[in-house]
């Protein structure tokens, strides 16, 4: 967490609201600050780290509600005790970004952070069923709730997810959770070409075997395809999958729990880029375009997740990734670079004028005094 400016960390939602009402200075909104992005303009830091604790957990209803500053470790421990989990498998940015501290659930929501299971279980925004937040006028607002099917009024829950603290300060979040599966099995293929890797992953993802992860690490020349379920089920689906992909060179189906954790943590958290110099870009395209992307960028290193739909690229500093991508449909986010780089390359992919205007107008409605995380979204 930056220590150069004063830090305010309210202990209650009401205190948070009072503070926002009274303040006139632009604020940097933070959870634990493990996922810094862009260069926000601010005079003080507003942290949710003192808004802690699970406020409601009903395993039989698959729902959990927690205050925004609740550390992920605490939330996960509560869920594991009932053999449940957040199904979207949020990424931990600490190694990639060389940050420290305990990531918070509010930070996960504000950045809509997901993981490899995104392709099966959806993103953070898909599991999120309710939010409470404080808008720029200091109003305490709520949307959604604690039930998993809810179409009452507009879905501001989705809007708040991934809004990077620019529309309001999230104070509480509710999630639909899922049971932890008994067994994990990962089919490992030896593949050298991106196009071959994507072909294998697409075939697996188009199968009825319920794939919960599909990734490619070109450095090791390995494709990883994950199955989860009961022991018998993983075994049966594993052999069906193995038959389906018989034309690709297969290693094993890894079923050791710890080795699986290492494989998928490495992919999800992009730890292979840790401390290596260069800019880190996160690129989302349709999987079949992954090979075009890697040709266009010829990155120093890259990792494919989401069956090829998510590309993590480590490139030379100042490489103009977006112009290299040209007409390939999708978007690229500058996740890590030297401070000030976003002056040349905006952090987030520029939008067409209509969408840009809508976004700007939304910000003005939610935060008319321009207090929250100014400069992150341009």
């Amino acid at each position, binding site marked *: 967490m930056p220590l150069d400016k004063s830090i305010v960390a309210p202990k209650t939602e009401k205190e948070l609201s009072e503070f926002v009402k009274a303040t006139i200075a632009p604020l940097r909104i933070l959870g634990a600050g493990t996922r810094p992005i862009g260069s926000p303009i601010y005079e003080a830091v507003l942290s949710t780290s003192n808004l802690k604790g699970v406020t409601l957990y009903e395993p039989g209803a698959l729902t959990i509600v927690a205050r925004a500053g609740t550390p992920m470790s605490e939330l996960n421990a509560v869920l594991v005790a009932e053999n449940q989990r957040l199904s979207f498998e949020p990424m931990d940015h600490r190694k990639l970004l060389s940050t420290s501290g305990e990531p918070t659930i509010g930070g996960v929501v504000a950045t809509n952070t997901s993981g490899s299971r995104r392709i099966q279980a959806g993103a953070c925004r898909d599991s999120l069923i309710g939010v409470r937040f404080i808008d720029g006028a200091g109003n305490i607002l709520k949307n959604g709730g*604690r039930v998993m099917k809810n179409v009452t009024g*507009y879905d501001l829950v989705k809007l708040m997810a991934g809004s990077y603290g620019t529309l309001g300060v999230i104070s509480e979040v509710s999630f639909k959770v899922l*049971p932890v599966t008994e067994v994990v099995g990962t089919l490992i293929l030896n593949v050298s070409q991106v196009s071959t890797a994507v072909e294998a992953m697409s075939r697996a993802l188009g199968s009825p075997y319920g794939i919960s992860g599909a990734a490619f690490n070109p450095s090791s020349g390995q494709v990883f395809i994950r199955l989860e379920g*009961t022991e018998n*089920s993983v075994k049966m689906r594993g052999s069906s999958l193995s038959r389906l992909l018989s034309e690709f060179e297969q290693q094993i189906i890894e079923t050791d729990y710890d080795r699986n954790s290492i494989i998928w943590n490495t992919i999800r958290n992009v730890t292979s880029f840790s401390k290596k110099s260069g800019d880190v870009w996160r690129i989302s395209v349709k999987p079949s375009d992954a090979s075009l992307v890697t040709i266009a960028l010829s990155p120093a290193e890259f990792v494919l997740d989401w069956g090829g739909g998510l590309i993590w690229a480590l490139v030379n500093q100042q490489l103009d990734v977006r112009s290299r991508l040209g007409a390939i449909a999708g978007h690229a986010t500058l996740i890590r670079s030297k401070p000030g780089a976003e002056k040349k390359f905006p952090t987030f992919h520029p939008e067409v004028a209509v969408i840009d205007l809508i976004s700007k107008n939304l910000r003005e409605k939610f935060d008319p005094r321009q207090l929250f995380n100014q400069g992150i979204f341009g």
Partner: protein
Amino acid sequence: MMEMPVPSSIILERKSSLVLKLQKILPKGSVIHDKYETKAYECDALTAYRCPPMCVVLPETTQQVSDVLKFCYLENIPVVPRGSGTSLSGGALPTADCVVLGVSKLNKVLEIDYDNRFIKVQTGRTNLSVSVAIEEQGFFYAPDPSSQLACAIAGNIAMNSGGAHCLKYGVTTNNLLGVKLVLMDGTITEIGGSFLDAPSYDLLGLICGSEGQMGVVTEATLRILRKPEFARPVLIGFDSNEVAGACVSDIIKAGVLPVAIEFMDRPVIEATEAFSGAGYPDCEALLIIEVEGSEVEISEQISIVSSIARRHKPVEVRESKSNEESAKIWLGRKSAFGAMGKINDYMCLDGTIPISSLPFVLKRIGEMSKEYGLAVGNVFHAGDGNMHPLILFDANKPGDLELCESFGADILRLCVEVGGCLTGEHGVGIEKRDLMLDQFSKEDLEVQMKVKDVFDPKWLLNPAKVFPLSVSELRRNQ
């Protein structure tokens, strides 16, 4: 009774000239203005409320949608977008001074991509026909509202529709990748596409479920999935609603995730038996639980479900052994609404509650039913707590509809009190509009209306829905 705003006399007086101008914008036969022909559009599936619109337009292209909207924007005419008109909440109910914009002619499949697992369609296409277009290759589109034979993707997006199988696959918003959107001023734009998680704000998530109040969606990119190898239901009968409710919670807690958990109580069981002869057991409540996957998975899951059910002393546990048996188990559930409709007029509610409150809420509904003197049947998606109490009334009996509506409102308030919400999948429309302040504070609604201000600053798109009229009055009459 729900009120609708007084139609604008200025617009009504200009009807013939406005219709003429719309006819110039659109191809021949695309504008319906005859007072008999517009009757077909006077209501949606909430048939208690009817009002023929000023006229109906049926554009054939996104550009024509844009042209119509731009014209209405400049002339300050309200527009009510319409998919197939199957809304149960009055989402497509016209006002006398409005133009109904139907997307039914926009029904083409634009692109199918199995490698990247998406389909791009025009939104007038029906839900089921999306799945039909891809079933040969073994794929399907997951959201499956009961009206899927008729309902359009446009309406599914507007209402964020669900269905019986969304416990596993999610609702529309979880399966929508991109849209082509026409704003009220005629601007055409795209949000999302064939890739995941569009940058900037999640406008796709915002559009989905906005009840046609932010723009008209003419094209949609939808996630498609490979069909599971097999699916099989098990039917379990109980001698009380409470026990059935407790069983649902125990199944979910045990780590099994069925694709569907459907609940029916005695009034509905009896009605469907008389109607369809599905051979259901004589009991107070029954659950239909469907699991899917490989044969091994199915056997495992069914045995877990059955053993949990047996702990709750069921009247009967019936595991399907064949496709015929499966069809028979689903037969009663699928004909439930029709069967109830045969007994009487009914109003179908849609509140969602935390599953843990199921026994309490069912008991309270029973008590309220006696207080109001109106019978209620319950048939719903129990896995996600989305209830569908059906209140029986006699539309021809003076005062009965009003009594039914106030009973319904009390049930929905009960849903909110226990931590749930007014609507799980049907939408607010006009039906739940006046109850919004029971769930939200004025500030909560104000911020939602500010979002509409951004997309539709003149409040011309479906303006009299979702928000209580008193709350939206200043904006509608600006």
